[in-house]
């Protein structure tokens, strides 16, 4: 087995037993990136020498007998939505194409403190808005299992780099399924932690009340490793929870006894691809064989989840993205050209004696805002800004935003009731496997429906895990979703690991010649 075929947990053990070094591992991944990433396009920025230097520093410390952090010098890819000091953070947007933050996100800091090596920054849908990474201003990320298909999104790069063996560990973000859906499409494991479990400081906000950072990797044990490094209270994020962080890596191997799993009947409706249904049922059987009790449950309000989500998320986004106005940083329209046009328009109006036209002429400042935003943002981002602006407008607030908040409450109540009966809720991640690049580009509504099974966890703020549970006849990965009550990541990871002990879907890798 080569280095890049090993899981992060196995690599860590190999380093600690002196079988390999951080530099060797980092070089192996950089080589593989060089070999395949031009085709996959998972990375927007690749670490190169800086990653090797960081790996070398960890090796030297270990050689001197000094303490090495939890991540032991393992390379980590980070979604380009997290701020990295002195390193461009683009959010896959033209708007921030040249933006260099003067500070690190808390998660970036914690990875560095745990001796993770920054391997590169991964592609995404612009500002995390989308489910296919086709909305990136820097090209689509392709699915390593089938390069004609999408990797999912918005953390498409974060999932594809793991699937393509170009990173052992990866950081994504999940607002409505943005870790779990690409993990399912790419056949890797991904966790959306409980809201507040991981600090959002330095995560460029899409929808603040839904966004959560989480790990992606091959195995659930790998997720436990990365989550342990990044989780915990942060004084710089008022919404981060002051709840102790268990040592996930210590207990992830311990199986759970007397497990009760709930299967929501709403997740097996007509909309579900039969191939996906079959593989998910088979996965549930694996748990049954391990002694788990399987119960059908109901999440009656889940049918309203998409509607509520597409009010709340764009509303928050319209506000969060207001700062990209060209005034302080980021993209600004060509002002010289703009002013020339403005002057000639003004003169023409003056000459025509058109007072009404002169009155209606926007100010140069307003025109600069409009132009910069029109040119800097992509179509999907603009669509959501408009949706959100509309929903928050005077006269519409109660009918849309406030009502969506009420639905959100009902969805949370559904989960609270369900978790009184069962330990975890189990079902599919997505209605179907990865679709072809371009297939949904003109059909945003169908794309929004891809989030059907995932958005509820964000609305309710609970933890949710996606793990690979098989391949369709076309050789496309399918994901199994396990959802847990808030702050039960420790048990959730153990439950996920139980499945991976019995199966090897998480070890399957696509062949990229």
């Amino acid at each position, binding site marked *: 087995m080569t280095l890049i075929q090993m899981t992060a947990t196995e690599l860590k053990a190999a380093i600690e037993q002196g079988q390999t070094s951080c530099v060797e591992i980092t070089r192996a991944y950089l080589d593989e990136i060089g070999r395949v990433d031009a085709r996959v396009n998972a990375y927007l920025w690749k670490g190169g020498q800086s990653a090797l230097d960081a790996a070398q520093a960890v090796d030297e410390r270990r050689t001197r007998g000094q303490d090495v952090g939890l991540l032991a010098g393992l390379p980590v890819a980070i979604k380009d939505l997290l701020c990295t000091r002195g390193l461009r*953070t683009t959010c896959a947007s033209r708007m921030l194409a040249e933006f260099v933050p003067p500070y690190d996100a808390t998660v970036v800091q914690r990875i560095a403190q745990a001796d993770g090596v920054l391997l590169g920054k991964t592609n995404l849908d612009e500002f995390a808005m989308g489910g296919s990474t086709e909305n990136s201003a820097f090209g689509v990320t392709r699915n390593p299992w089938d390069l004609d298909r999408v990797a999912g999104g918005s953390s498409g790069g974060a999932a594809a780099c793991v699937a393509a063996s170009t990173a052992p560990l990866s950081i994504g973000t999940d607002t409505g399924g943005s870790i779990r859906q690409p993990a399912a499409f790419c056949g890797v494991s991904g966790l959306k932690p409980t809201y507040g479990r991981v600090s959002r400081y330095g995560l460029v906000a899409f929808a603040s009340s839904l966004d959560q950072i989480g790990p992606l990797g091959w195995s659930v044990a790998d997720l436990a490793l990365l989550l342990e490094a990044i989780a915990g209270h942060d004084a*710089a994020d008022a919404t981060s929870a002051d709840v102790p962080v268990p040592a996930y890596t210590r207990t992830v191997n311990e199986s759970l006894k007397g497990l009760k799993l709930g299967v929501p009947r709403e997740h097996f409706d007509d909309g579900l691809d039969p191939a996906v249904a079959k593989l998910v049922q088979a996965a549930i059987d694996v748990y049954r064989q391990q002694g788990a009790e399987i119960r059908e449950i109901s999440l009656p309000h889940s049918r309203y989840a998409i509607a509520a989500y597409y009010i709340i998320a764009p509303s928050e986004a319209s506000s969060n993205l*207001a700062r990209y106005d060209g005034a302080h940083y980021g993209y600004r329209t060509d002002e010289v050209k703009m002013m020339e046009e403005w002057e000639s328009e003004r003169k023409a109006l003056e000459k025509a004696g058109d007072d009404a036209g002169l009155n209606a002429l926007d100010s140069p400042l307003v025109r600069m805002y409009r132009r910069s935003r029109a040119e800097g943002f992509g179509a999907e981002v603009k669509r959501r800004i408009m949706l959100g602006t509309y929903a928050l407008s005077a006269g519409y607030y109660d009918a849309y935003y406030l009502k969506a908040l009420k639905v959100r409450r009902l969805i949370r109540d559904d989960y609270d009731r369900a978790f009184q009966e069962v330990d975890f809720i189990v079902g599919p991640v997505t209605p179907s496997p990865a679709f072809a690049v371009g297939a949904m580009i003109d059909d945003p509504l169908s794309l929004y429906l891809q989030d059907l099974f995932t958005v509820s966890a964000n609305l309710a703020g609970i933890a949710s895990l996606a793990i690979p549970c098989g391949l369709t006849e076309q050789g496309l990965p399918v994901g199994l979703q396990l959802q847990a009550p808030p702050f039960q990541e420790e048990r959730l990871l153990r439950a996920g690991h139980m499945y991976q002990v019995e199966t090897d879907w998480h070890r399957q890798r696509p062949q990229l010649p």
Partner: protein
Amino acid sequence: MSAPPYQIIIGLEVHVQLATQTKLFCRCSTQFGAPPNTQTCPVCTGLPGALPVMNRHAYELALVTARALNCEIPRYTKWDRKQYYYPDLPKGYQISQYDLPMSQHGYLEISDPQDRFEPKRVRVLRAHLEEDAGKSMHDEVAGRADSRIDLNRTGTPLLEIVSEPDMRSPLEAKAYLTELKLLLTYLGVSDCNMQEGSLRVDANVNLWLDVDGERVATPIVEIKNMNSFRAVERALTYEAERQFDVWEETGQRLGDVPKQTRGWDDNACVTKAQRSKEESSDYRYFPDPDLVPVMVTDDQLAVAESQLGELPAALRSRLQREYEVSAYDADVLVNQGRAVVDYFVEAARVSRDPKKASNWIQRDVLRALNESGTNIEDFGVCARNLGELIEQINDGQIPGSRGVEVFHQMREARSTLAEAMETLGITGVDSGELIALCQELLAKNPRVVSDVLNGKEAAVGSLIGQAKKSNPNVDPALVRQTCLDLIRQQST
């Protein structure tokens, strides 16, 4: 001058910068006057990914202020985003409080010591916390506009105090502002420096007219850019007259035209229409998802309550009640601030003559402070020394005519009373000595005695000069009184 044929209706919105060391949602300093953009961080410059964390101290200062304004404090309050575009607002929204402000339904009592208006309660609709914006500086160089932004002020905690439209004259509006500023100063929650922008006032004003026995309201106008309380008074006076002229000309009533914003031009002494802000009508408020709601506990309320101390209104009535000073005097003393009141209380205690202590402070101490530009804590005559001076004058140990001299000697030399008296060669004249001197003078001047007995008491005046010649320390008033007493004793 006849009364104008209308009533002025005034409501005030006051923005007060709270005296915290750091900003409302980050740790940057709030110090005024630093070079532009040196007191900033990712949070207050609105960089992508930065998150706000509430400054607990700012909330506590707001709580104390709200209680001093007799406001109700809801147990649950939250933060909302007020959204609009402007270059001095780097996030594209201001974090403020919309439908659940941290306090509401209070009042502030105002009165005029000169009785130009009836004492009244101005209701406070709400007081809420919000972050300040930055400052735009516009340069017009050779016709090309150039704007620069300083974000040092961005995120400074502001308490917005909104009154009900309860004021009926520019004078009442000025009284409200003066009393509010005094209250804030007593609480120590703000330095209230209008020049540095720590206290900003906007006014909403319109008129009520009587038209055929029916009350008609004119459109409400918001006035901005008033940089002193005097400017507020003048702007309101001007605006009332202007609105009446507009009414006479157009007959426009409330609701006929959109609310107008006008800026006060202090040089031209007029209000001028301001260009309405782009899309200012819809701020699309919604709860800020980056911040958690604030819950107020009984303990926090009790702490705020305990920090109120004695407020100006209570202090005025206590001075009148316990020290028997007039309402006017109490007002003057209290309006000078807590330190002057403390000074008065000590001087009154030592002298056992509050009335005279009050007079001395108003006449001599405040004038000296004004002239030298110092504050009372650094003043050369401490309260105890002033008290002793008054006591010694009352006891006849110091002639009243030389009191001011002694006062200034103490002030200039920063000396004790005894040292000042010694420097000036003043020694006490005991009553035996004084009686002997007066008897001697009366014996020498029988004409004076007979004049007095014939009802011309003023004749005693001629003896005072002689008395001072023989002993410069005698108190003229005491000489006069003693002589009169002796003449009456002799005649009976």
